[in-house]
């Protein structure tokens, strides 16, 4: 059973990592704890669901969800967040409250447009479940893990192998220095939001497929769980986020499997976080050069 549980934990952990990646990318540049990223997650899920119900093509659904939500992200960044953080003397809580407002707004907008009831993807898989030894991986999971891996590869490629990514990393390291080096930080910020909201949308669509349900409040739990993950991952560090997501996924799964219901699943992320931070106040993976 242990091997199956470890696989379960890693699989759900990779979904957590994907969910939190958007918030990490945004924090990396703008230093905002963007709760509204969970709104993008729900919006993305609905966008993906809509495209899938029209075209029955899941890849198209993912692309559409990411593009649609990514564009919203850029608009949100340009017209809401950027003007806020560029004002002098703005306290750190202001962007946070803004993101709470945006999150509330999107959640209820989805309810008004699509109704409170669950929407379903009803996806059928042509592949079969795989069994290796006594570990069984279902078709959904094969699809999800492959897709997540692809997305992470794309992200790694963009951040490490392209000029745009270099600019992003420079801005993340130090906005002021990046500016003096001639980096267009506006483009880095826009990139953060395209990728940030796009990743959230991909995660939302993926969870929609996984649980076959999409509903307006689906972002509620990710909205805070992803905060625990990005902090655990060292705030703004994409690699740290992957590690933290998997650590949380494994912890939740193993606690649930071996300790039963000693504490609610949602709390486990925070318990892990508090323990880690008390021991190592800078998070699991520490950022270089800051």
């Amino acid at each position, binding site marked *: 059973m242990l091997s*199956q549980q470890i696989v379960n934990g890693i699989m759900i952990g990779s979904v957590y990592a994907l969910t939190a990646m958007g918030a990490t990318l945004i924090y990396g540049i703008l230093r905002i704890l963007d709760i509204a990223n969970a709104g993008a997650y729900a919006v993305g899920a609905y966008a993906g669901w809509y495209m899938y119900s029209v075209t029955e093509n899941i890849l198209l659904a993912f692309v559409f969800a990411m593009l649609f939500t990514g564009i919203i992200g850029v608009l949100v960044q340009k017209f809401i967040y950027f003007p806020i953080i560029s004002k002098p003397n703005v306290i750190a809580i202001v962007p946070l409250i803004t993101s709470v407002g945006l999150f509330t707004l999107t959640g209820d907008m989805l309810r008004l447009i699509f109704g409170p009831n669950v929407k*379903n993807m009803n996806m059928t898989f042509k592949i079969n479940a795989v069994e290796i030894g006594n570990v069984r991986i279902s078709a959904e999971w094969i699809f999800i893990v492959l897709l997540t891996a692809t997305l992470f590869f794309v992200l790694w490629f963009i951040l490490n192998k392209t000029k745009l990514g270099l600019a992003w990393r420079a801005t993340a390291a130090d906005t002021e220095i990046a500016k003096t080096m001639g980096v267009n930080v506006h483009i880095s910020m826009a990139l953060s939001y395209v990728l940030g909201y796009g990743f959230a949308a991909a995660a939302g669509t993926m969870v929609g497929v996984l649980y*076959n349900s999409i509903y307006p409040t689906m972002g509620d739990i990710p909205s805070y769980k992803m905060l625990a993950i990005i902090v655990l991952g060292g705030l703004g560090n994409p690699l740290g986020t992957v590690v933290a997501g998997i650590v949380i996924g494994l912890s939740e799964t193993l606690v649930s499997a071996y300790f039963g219901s000693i504490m609610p699943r*949602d709390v486990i992320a925070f318990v892990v976080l508090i323990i880690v931070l008390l021991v190592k106040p800078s998070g699991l993976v520490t950022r270089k050069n800051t």
Partner: protein
Amino acid sequence: MKNKRYGIFTLLLVLALVFSLTACASEQPAEEPPAEEPQAEEPQAEEPPAEEEPKEPIRIGFFAPLTGPAAADGLSTSNSAELAVEIINESGGIDGRPVELVSYDDGLDTKQAVSIAQRLTTRDDVVAVVSGSYSGPTRVAAPIFQDAGIPMISGYAIHPDVTDSGDFIFSQSFPGQVQGKAGGVVAVDMLDAKRISIIAVDIDFGKTLAAAFKDYVVPKGAEIVSEDYFGMGDSEFAPIVTKLKDEIKPDLIYMANYYGHGAEIVRQLKSQGFDVQVLGTEGIDSYQFFEIAGEDAEGVMITTNMNRDSEDQATQEYIKTYTEKFGIVPDMVGASVYDAFQVLFKAIGEVGTDPELIRDTIKDLKGFKTVTGELIEYAPTREAIKPVQIQIIEDGAYHYYEEIDDLEIITPEPR
């Protein structure tokens, strides 16, 4: 000097704010008497029959979580409330008086429920109230209706303290304890299960049902081999299912949870290839359960109050009209709220709008046919006694499997 002036200014501001509120509040009594008097006197004035005055509507209060995490249930119940009122008005109202629905959204928040209850009792001039909400909001509202002497029927909240608030408070669903016991009957007496795993949602609903279920099955010789509780928002059940499949190997799973959880559990069971009988509760009595679970839902059994295969005309009529009007199939919470309205209409039709008479009539109601089966009577705890329906999912729909009408089982124990 400046210091002081500023301090005083701030203080004055605060006092002004606090007292403007108090003032608003104390304005209230001035308004209250006229609001209350007609309410108290109306029945007497109108009860002597055959006085053909302009027909004033009978106002019935209603609250449900239309926004927030339980909005789907809120929608289902408020649809039912609308439908019930629409149908009675089409048939000429009660005693010729139209019924008016005063409906509020509590957002699943107890603070709002308290405000709503106060509003209903002191401003809206309602003769009775139906709760379409969960236990928390219903529980905090109940004592306010009790104190105001306005009858309230709770549609499906199962917290025992709801009806314990007093003699004006009724519950239309059977208490958790009865349903848990009925689940036990299905598990051990009908399906002969020996090794049972419980998976329940960690709120009053899941906890109460699981405890009652255990109390029934353990003395009958069945073994509870595992118990797992999870949070309301959980959707990941792979760890639990893996554990059950690889180690516990139960011959029956009892799920006391809602449709979202239930659907994920059966999908996960299927996906991991674990074939086991699943017994659910009214919590998964919703068309959304099939929509999410699809084929994986086949063979799941539930204990609930509405028999979809009922030959009762009212039941079939309700299912048909509801589906036509709202484009979705009614579920347990909707049906229970619909019934709560039927009970109120019946009582008001018999005795008029005096709250105490309504209360007494409801209390003495016997053998009343509702869409969720025959309401035998209300127990001394004011919780409905009615047969428990056992339904099984076949071909993507709930179907009749059995009915438990043994009074031993379905009568709530006195507390």
